[in-house]
């Protein structure tokens, strides 16, 4: 929560970070959360600004 706000502040899109509370017995929920994040990330352009010299 704090990290997401910090990332948003420094200019990293908050949708790049996902935090969920998932129990060891909730395999399906875990798979769904990871798939959802992966799908979301694939739709985003790479953030080149954080790789190269500005």
């Amino acid at each position, binding site marked *: 929560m704090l990290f997401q706000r910090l990332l948003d*502040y*420094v200019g990293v899109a908050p949708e790049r970070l996902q935090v969920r509370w998932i129990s060891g017995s909730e395999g399906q929920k875990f798979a769904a959360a990871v798939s959802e994040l992966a799908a979301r990330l694939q739709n985003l352009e790479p953030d080149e600004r954080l790789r190269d010299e500005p």
Partner: protein
Amino acid sequence: MGTTEKIREIAAGLLRDGKVDVVIGYGPGTLPLRSTPLFARTVEEAERLIWDATCGNNLAVYLPGRKDRVGIVVKGCDSRAVVQLIHENQIAREQVFVIGVPCAGIIDRRQVEAAVEREIRAAREEGAELVVEGDGWSRRFNREEVLYGACRTCRHNNPVLYDALAGEPLPPRDGGPTLVEIWEKKPAGERRDFILSEMARCIRCYACRNACPMCYCTECFVDSSTPRWLGRATDAGENLFFQIGRVLHLAGRCVACGACSRACPMDIKLGLLLGKMNKDVLELFGHEAGLNPEEPPALNAFRPDDPETFLLGK
């Protein structure tokens, strides 16, 4: 009696009576506008202690893991660091004799040096003014105008914890908006460009980490080689990653003393990131680090009304 004399008297008394093994305070620096940490172990050494507006170091950095009994000279912000370190079991309350100093702000020597553009040979305070002198010239500054940013917007200038106070408590300050309040209002793109340009100047000397009383880990994540959390390159992205990593580790622990910014040789405005974290912790958890010896740090305590958006994923 001035604050310097008062500190010397308290320190000498503690050492003479054997109440502490060492008093950690400030001594005169070798250059004008600078002071240096001073470890006084005898009554004679205590005579060299000083207090003035250049005593910027947060001496609480020397506390974690100590086994001896220490007297320590603290400003408002430093006292919060002592409280936080006691919370974190880095030092026991009984080990520390806290000599509190109400602080009127620390002078940013870089601002003064930039303004005079000449070699400063001497500096002294005269009331609300700072007088600096060189070869055949002298110049007066309004003390308030050459303080560090963190000092100008400081809201806790009086020590929150002390066993003896060297001086009268000062009225609380109201220094106007902080760096974070200013930058939060600006467009995200502009803020991002500014933060990245600040980060691009970082040389990764880790002086910020070493000056920080809360950065006492024996192995820092930046030094770890297995796993290697981040690269050694000093480009804006890696530097930003280091800084946000440090900020995250200081969540709910940073006492906003500004020691990191003062230690930074590149004069990077680190308060820009740490201030943001402190502001968010206050907003979400209603807590400021090290203000109350009775209250546990924000991220160490669970309260039923804590925000927990991550549980439901919304």
